[in-house]
C-alpha cells in the first residue's frame, strides 16, 4: 500500500509543487468567500462555491494531464492548435461578454477560448523550438514561431482583449528566450512592438529608433534583417496613432488612466483609486478577514476577480500581502527549477512558458492593484475567481508536473 502511495505521489511529478498549488487555490477560495461578504445582495456571495466546484474539475483535469506522455501531446499539438484557432474564430462570430466578445457559451457552460489558445500556442512553440539542438540565430528563421503567435494574437486583439493578447507576446518572448535564441534577435523581433507603444511621442520614439539603428550597426546582422527591422520600426511608429484610434474607448481610457488615474476619477480611474484606498487602508495588519469596508460597501470593483489582491491588502494588510507574494514567488521559483532541470526540450519549453505566463499574470495583476501596471483585467493565478482560468492553470500545472515526472 505504501508503495502504491509512493507511486501515486511520484506520478504527480512534483507533489510539493502540487501541494503548494492546492494551498494557493484554497487561499484563493478563502479570499473569494471574503469578497462575497458584502452589505448589498450580490452574486459574488456564492462565487466561492462555484470556484470550489471548478477546483475539483481542475484537479481531475490535472490528474488526467499528468497521465498523458509528452510525446503524445507533441504529436497532437498541431490538432490542438488548429482547434483553438477555430474556437477563436468562432468566438468572434458568436461570442459574448460585457465589453468584448471573449466568451463562448456551449450548453449553458461558458469559457474563454483565449485560455485554450494560450495553452495551444505554448505547445506549438515548444514543438517548433524544442526539437532543435541548435537555436536559430537568424531573424527570418523565426517566421514559424512568430506566425504561430501572431495568428491567435490578432484574433484575440479583434475581440478585443488587450490583456490576453499581451500574454501571447509574453509566450513568444519566453519561448524564444528559453530556446536560446540570441537576445539581440529577440530584441530585433520585439523592437517594432516597442516602436508601436512609443509612437505616441515623436521624440521618445526618435530616441528609440536611434537605439535600434545603433544596435543594428554594432551587431551587424544580415543586411536584409537590418533593413526589415528598421522599416518595421518606422512603420510601427507611424501606425501607432491610427491603431490607437482603433482601440475600444474603454481600452484607451484604461491606458490613459494608467498614466494618470485622476483624469477620470468616477470612470476608469475609479478602479485604481478605490483599489489603492482599499490596500492603503489595510495598513500592516489589515481590517480583518471578511471585514474590509471598501469591499463590503462595493467601492472596490471586481473584488473577486481582477482586484482580489486588493481585498488581500485591505483585509490582511501588508503581512497578508507578503505571505501571498512569498507563496507565489516560491511556486514560480519551483516551476523555473523544473524548467531548468528538464533535459527534454519540448517539456522544458512548456514549463518555462507557463512560468512566464503566470509570472506575467502576477506582475500585471498585482502591479495593477497598486497602480504600477495598467488595468488590463488579467486574473491572478490560483487566487482570482474564474473557472476556465483555474482550469487552464491546473492543466498547465499538470504539464509542468508531467515534465518533472518524465525527467
Amino acid at each position, binding site marked *: 500500500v505504501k508503495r502504491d502511495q509512493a507511486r501515486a505521489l511520484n506520478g504527480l511529478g512534483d507533489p510539493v509543487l502540487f501541494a503548494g498549488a492546492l494551498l494557493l487555490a484554497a487561499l484563493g477560495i478563502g479570499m473569494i468567500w471574503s469578497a462575497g461578504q458584502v452589505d448589498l445582495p450580490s452574486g459574488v456571495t456564492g462565487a466561492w462555491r462555484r470556484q470550489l466546484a471548478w477546483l475539483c474539475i481542475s484537479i481531475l483535469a490535472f490528474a488526467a494531464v499528468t497521465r498523458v506522455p509528452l510525446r503524445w501531446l507533441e504529436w497532437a499539438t498541431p490538432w490542438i492548435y488548429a482547434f483553438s484557432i477555430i474556437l477563436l474564430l468562432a468566438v468572434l462570430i458568436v461570442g459574448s461578454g460585457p465589453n468584448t466578445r471573449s466568451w463562448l457559451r456551449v450548453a449553458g457552460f461558458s469559457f474563454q477560448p483565449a485560455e485554450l489558445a494560450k495553452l495551444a500556442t505554448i505547445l506549438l512553440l515548444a514543438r517548433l523550438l524544442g526539437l532543435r539542438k541548435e537555436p536559430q540565430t537568424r531573424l527570418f528563421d523565426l517566421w514559424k514561431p512568430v506566425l504561430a503567435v501572431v495568428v491567435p494574437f490578432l484574433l484575440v486583439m479583434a475581440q478585443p482583449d488587450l490583456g490576453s493578447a499581451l500574454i501571447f507576446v509574453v509566450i513568444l518572448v519566453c519561448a524564444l528566450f528559453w530556446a536560446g535564441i540570441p537576445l539581440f534577435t529577440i530584441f530585433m523581433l520585439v523592437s517594432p512592438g516597442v516602436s508601436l507603444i512609443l509612437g505616441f511621442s515623436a521624440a521618445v520614439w526618435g530616441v528609440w529608433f536611434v537605439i535600434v539603428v545603433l544596435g543594428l550597426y554594432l551587431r551587424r546582422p544580415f543586411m536584409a534583417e537590418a533593413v526589415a527591422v528598421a522599416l518595421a520600426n518606422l512603420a510601427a511608429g507611424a501606425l501607432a496613432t491610427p491603431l490607437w484610434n482603433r482601440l475600444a474607448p474603454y481600452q484607451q481610457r484604461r491606458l490613459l488612466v494608467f498614466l494618470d488615474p485622476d483624469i477620470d476619477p468616477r470612470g476608469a480611474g475609479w478602479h485604481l483609486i478605490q483599489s489603492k*484606498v482599499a490596500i*492603503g487602508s489595510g495598513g500592516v495588519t489589515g481590517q480583518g478577514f471578511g471585514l474590509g*469596508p471598501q469591499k463590503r460597501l462595493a467601492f472596490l470593483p471586481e473584488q473577486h476577480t481582477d482586484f482580489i489582491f486588493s481585498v488581500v491588502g485591505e483585509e490582511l494588510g501588508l503581512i497578508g500581502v507578503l505571505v501571498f507574494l512569498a507563496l*507565489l514567488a516560491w511556486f*514560480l521559483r519551483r516551476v523555473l527549477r523544473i*524548467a*531548468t532541470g528538464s533535459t527534454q526540450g519540448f517539456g522544458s519549453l512548456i514549463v518555462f512558458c507557463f512560468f512566464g505566463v503566470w*509570472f506575467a499574470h502576477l506582475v500585471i495583476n498585482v*502591479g495593477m492593484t*497598486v497602480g504600477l501596471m495598467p488595468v488590463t483585467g488579467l486574473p491572478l493565478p490560483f487566487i482570482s475567481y474564474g473557472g476556465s482560468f483555474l482550469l487552464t492553470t491546473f492543466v498547465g500545472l499538470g504539464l509542468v508536473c508531467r515534465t518533472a515526472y518524465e525527467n
Partner: protein
Amino acid sequence: MRGGEAVRLSRARRARAAAALLGVVILVLAAAFFRLQVLGGGSYELQSRNNRLRPIPIPAARGAVYDRHGELLAESIPGYSLSLLPAPPDSALATLERLAPYLSLESSAIEAILERRGRNPQLPVLVRDDLSFEQVAAVEERRPEFRLVVIETHPRRRYPPGSVVAHVIGYVGEISESELDSDQFVEYEAGRIVGKQGIERSYESELAGVAGTRYVEVNARGSIVREFPSDLARSAQPGSDLILTLDLALQQFADSIFPVGDRGAVVALDPRTGGVLLLSSFPSFDPNLFVGGISEPDWAAIRDDPGQPILNRAAAALYPAGSTWKLVLATLGMRENLVGIETYMPTSCRGALQFGNRAFRCWRPEGHGSLNLSEAIKESCNVFFYQLGLRIGLDPLLSGVNGLGFNQATGLDIPSEISSRFPESREWYDRTFGRRGWTESVVLNLSIGQGETEQTLIRMAQFYSSLAIGQSPVVPHLLQSEVLERVRESWTLGLPEARRAELVSALVRVVNEPGGTAYWHRPTEWTLAGKTGTAQNPHGEPHSWFVGFAPADDPRIVIAAIVENGHPDNRTSRAVPLASQIVSQYLRSEGVPPDHPIEEPAQPPPPGVTGVVGGIQ
C-alpha cells in the same frame, strides 16, 4: 552534440536571469505595498472613511418668540423632512420622479431640487421639509424603492398669530445662493433654513441654534447601509427663545379696527424704553405660507396683490410727513428763539401766502386769520409755518432737521427698515435740480412736510417720543432687552423743558379743544396729545397721518398711524380714530388710571359739515 551543450549552458544562465527577474519584481511589488500600506496608510484610511461616511446635518430647532406678555408669536413644531443622499444625477432624478406622486412635487420643483443638488453634490439635498405623517408613511411603506431617501424629524416653524405679526416676525426659508456667499452665513451650508425677514432675520444667530451632525455609512451607490457611531457626531443645540416688547393683543386690536381694504400702517412705542408695542402694516400676509417653501399660486397671489402685502409700510415705506412735520419746525424755531408759543407771525392767514410770484396755499381757503404758534399747531395753519420756515432760513433749517436724524434709518431691529429722506444741504439741490434749477422757495414746502422729504412712520414716532419725554429718544427696538433700552439717539430736541411743555400743550389742544384737528376722535378717558397730517402725494387722495402720545403729562405710548389715501377732501381723517382707539385700548390694558373720568362721550362728526372736521391739515 556541442550545440546541445551550448543550449544547456545558455539555459542555465538564462534560468539565473529569470530567477533574478522574479526576485526583483517580487521585491518591487512588496515595496509598492509597503509604500501604500505603511507609509501612506493613514491617508488611505481617511479616504476610505470619506468614501463611506456621509455627514447628515441634524437641524436645530429655532428658538420660540414671545410677546411682552408671554404670548407665542413663533414656535418650532416637529415636522418631517425628506432629503436625498448624494448619488449620480440620473438615480437622483429617477428617485425624485418616483417620489413625485407621494409628495406632490411638480416638475419645476424637481428641477429646482436637482439644481441645488448640483451645487453641492457631496451633501444630502433637501426635497421637502413640510411632510405630513401620511406622506411619510406612504414613502416608508415603499422603502425599497427609495434607498436614497432620508426622512428625518425636522423642526418646522409656525406663527400662531399668522398675518397679524407678519411684518414684525418675518418668516424663514431655505438659504439662498447669494446668502450662502455673504459673510453673515459663512458657517451655513446649502439647504439650511434661515430667517428671511423681520425678527427671524435680525436675530438669526440667536434663534438658529447650532445644527448637529450624524454620520451614516453608505455603499458605493450612495445608499445608506447603517448609522455610524462617530466621535465627530454632534447633537443639535436648539436656538434661544426671544421675548419681544410687542403687545400681541394690541397688535390684534389694531388689525381688527384698521379699515378693511385700506393700506397703511400703525406703530406704537413705549417712549420710556424705545420698545415697539405695535407694528402693523396693511395689507398683510400669512408668514406660515413661506415655511417649507411657498407654493407657486400662494406666491403669485402675494406678488400680484396691488396692495403689496410684503411691503412693511411702518418701516420700509416713505411718505411725505405732512403737517405732523410742523412740530419739527416749531422745535427748531423755539430752539433758536425765533418764535415763542404766543408769537404771532407778521402776515395773518388769508388762505395763502404770496412768496415771489407764487401763492403758497393754506388748507383752509378762507384762512385762519391771525394765529400764534399754539393756535397754528392746533389748527395746522400752513401760512404760519411758511413764515416760520422763512424766518429760520434754508441753511439752518436743513442742518437743524438733519441734526434730528431725519435722513437716516432709526436702527429698528427689522432688517428691511429704510432711511428717511431729507436734503442734507444746498449742494443736494444743486446736484438734483442744477444750480439754477431751484429757488429759496423750497423752504416753504419743507416747512410743512412736503417737497423733497419723505419719512418713515417709525422715524416720526421716534421724533414724537422725544417730544413726549424731553430726552434723547431710545432707538426703537422689538427685542426686550435692557441693553437696547440704553441705546439712545445722539441728538436731543435742544429745547428747555418749559418750551417743550408749551409744545406738548399745543399738541393737547389739537386733540382736546374744539376746533383742534383731531378733536372729534379724542379718547374719552386719557389726554392724547398729537398732530394730524394730510400728506399730498401723486398717487391720489392725500394720505392721512396722526402721530401723538398719551397720557400727555406722563406718556406711556407714542403712536403713529398712516392710512394711504385716507383723507379725501372734506371727509374725516381715518388715521385719527385709529390712533385714538389703539391708545385707549393700550392704556386700559396696562391699567393706567384715566386722566379724566368719562364726562362727555365723543360725538361723531356731523355729516356733511365742512371746514372744522374736514380737510384737517
